[in-house]
């Protein structure tokens, strides 16, 4: 492959490819973080995760329309408001769903899978009825869509940087929330011993609801961010679901660090392979490798060996 190119070209491309991998990594983390919170901390399998993401995307779309129509001056920065709204809307829907459905199913994790699949069907049709069957185009401020040319060949997409920064901020936020705040301690207490946590006065129901809402909210933000790089349509959420679950499971479900590490591994593997072979084969090989490793090491990459 090197033969035809100059060293400069080749190394530039390597750098770009590395960057592409990093973007993919950020995308995976964004996708998986919400799920990791819900699945890892609560053991609930939320098959409607993709639909919560798309809800965030639709919220962003509505915002862009609203802003263009009423306050065009704010267009360059509307995206930040949209993300916050996406978080709130998805989070609120998440809490509603937790209250109406999930809380009755904590003892039956496999059944949450079926119920949330049903939910995803309903949400898809809801989006279709409300927003139409066609995809919607979210218009973005110009400053978000360009790229920065570092050298002649190396160009860094701004939305890529945006996604990366956002991912870092959200991950950081989640970490602080989960590991440094009083609330996070409560969540972890509930995860480890529900009965005991209840006995020492933690409102476990509230913790559950807020945790679920948080996970869905993060999904909403992810969806909002993905309007920069992906499509927004009623069924677009389904595109993400397999990848997302694999990232979480591969990371070792109970570990947020694991999720991030696994997102890194999978994204780097995929983008490296994509460079050397056709996209389809790269995808198959990546998934196969992940499944293969999971078969050898079912507990995922990062799980503590536990005393039973």
């Amino acid at each position: 492959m090197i033969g035809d190119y100059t060293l400069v070209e080749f190394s530039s491309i390597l750098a770009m490819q590395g960057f592409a991998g990093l973007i993919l990594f950020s995308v995976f983390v964004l996708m998986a973080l919400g799920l990791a919170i819900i699945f890892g901390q609560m053991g609930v399998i939320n098959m409607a995760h993709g639909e919560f993401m798309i809800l965030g995307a639709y919220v962003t779309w509505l915002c862009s329309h609203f802003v263009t129509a009423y306050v065009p001056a704010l267009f360059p920065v509307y995206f930040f408001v949209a993300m916050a709204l996406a978080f709130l809307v998805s989070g609120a829907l998440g809490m509603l769903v937790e209250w109406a459905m999930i809380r009755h199913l904590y003892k039956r994790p496999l059944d949450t899978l079926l119920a949330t699949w049903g939910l995803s069907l309903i949400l898809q049709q809801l989006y279709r009825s409300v927003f139409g069957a066609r995809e919607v185009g979210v218009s973005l401020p110009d400053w978000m869509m360009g790229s920065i040319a570092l050298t002649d060949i190396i160009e860094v997409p701004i939305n890529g940087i945006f996604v990366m920064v956002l991912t870092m901020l959200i991950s950081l936020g989640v970490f602080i929330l989960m590991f440094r705040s009083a609330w996070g301690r409560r969540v972890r207490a509930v995860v480890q011993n529900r009965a005991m946590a209840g006995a020492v006065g933690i409102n476990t129901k509230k913790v559950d609801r807020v945790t679920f809402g948080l996970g869905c909210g993060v999904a909403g933000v992810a969806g909002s961010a993905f309007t920069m790089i992906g499509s927004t349509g009623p069924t677009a959420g389904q595109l993400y679901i397999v990848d997302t679950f694999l990232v979480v499971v591969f990371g070792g479900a109970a570990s947020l660090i694991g999720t991030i590490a696994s997102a890194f591994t999978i994204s780097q593997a995929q983008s490296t392979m994509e460079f050397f072979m056709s996209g389809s084969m790269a995808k198959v090989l990546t998934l196969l490798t992940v499944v293969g490793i999971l078969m050898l090491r079912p507990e995922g990459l990062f799980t503590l060996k536990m005393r039973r």
Partner: protein
Amino acid sequence: MNATFYTRREWIALAVLAALILIVFPATMDVFRLNLVGKYLTYAFVAAGLVLCWGHGGILSLGQGIFFGLGGYCMAMFLKLEASSPENTAIQSTPGIPDFMDWNQVTELPFWWIPFKSFPFTLAAVVLVPVIFAYIIGAAMFKRRVGGVYFAIITQAIAAILTILIIGQQGYTGGVNGITDLRTLLGWDIRTDSAKFILYFVNAALLIVVLLLGQAVRVSKFGRLLIAMRDKEDRVRFSGYSVADFKIFIFCLAAAFSAIGGAMFTLQVGFMSPSFVGIVPSIEMVIFAAVGGRLSLFGAVYGALIVNWAKTSFSESFPELWLFAMGGLFIAVVMAFPNGLAGLFRSHVEPLLAKLTRKSPSPPAPDATPAEAVKLAAE
């Protein structure tokens, strides 16, 4: 003194089901509807497998479509080769190979297609290929104690991989279109009405056989062990059983059931496509089992029939509402009646029947039962 194979109640249920699908449906439906029912019944194979593997064994596979698809593809390969005789494909640049291969510049039949020229081989492959595949998955996972949610997600990922592979290798698999335009089985035109009629009966009879087999497993000690494993896996292990072996077996059995369903699907519908291998159909098949009652083999058949019948008629009139209905059904079945129709039947209809029988000494007409069940579901 043997464990009773069937209780009297189950004998009646079996008789009713057999009467329904072997007599009532063929007598009251035209070939078109009957063929549709036949198609639904092929899903009942999968659902029956899931009842054993998920309902009894607690192993939720979200990849049953893999086995349905593999079984269907094996059959489709045979039929396609038969349909691709050199005379039929004379206009191709390479006559004698399936048309989609020709379109993709494949000039020679791939070696792994060649055995599918033989019908006995195909029949064996329909069952064995999926079973071997299931064995590999099962052995790898169960020996390492992967279970529950993890198993579900990994099977789902495998389904996704297989779909991408089949679509990507279109020169060898027909790609996203699948293997279409299947015509004859050993010279017998399967597209005619009479063939569809006969195939319906073959399908129904096979289903009954599969149900009997499933029931045999269910009432054997194996069946009780499955329930035991679902509840207290460690206890079973420390009673001296290799839990992994049992899980592998039941997973393989469910795969075999699905595969038979897949092959019958191909025969009755006339094509096979990767859309069966994917995640969506796999999950839908779980819902058939759940609606019927995840612990009831007969329930699985009713579940498959009713959900699909509802899907067909509902989507004819209100295609947009159908997804709401389907989604609602998923949620309702999980939250409100986790034992499905069979559970409702047991808790509501049977006491009623018992009351009736007590009043009148003659037993109730047997077909009252499924009719009730159907009515119940339709409401």
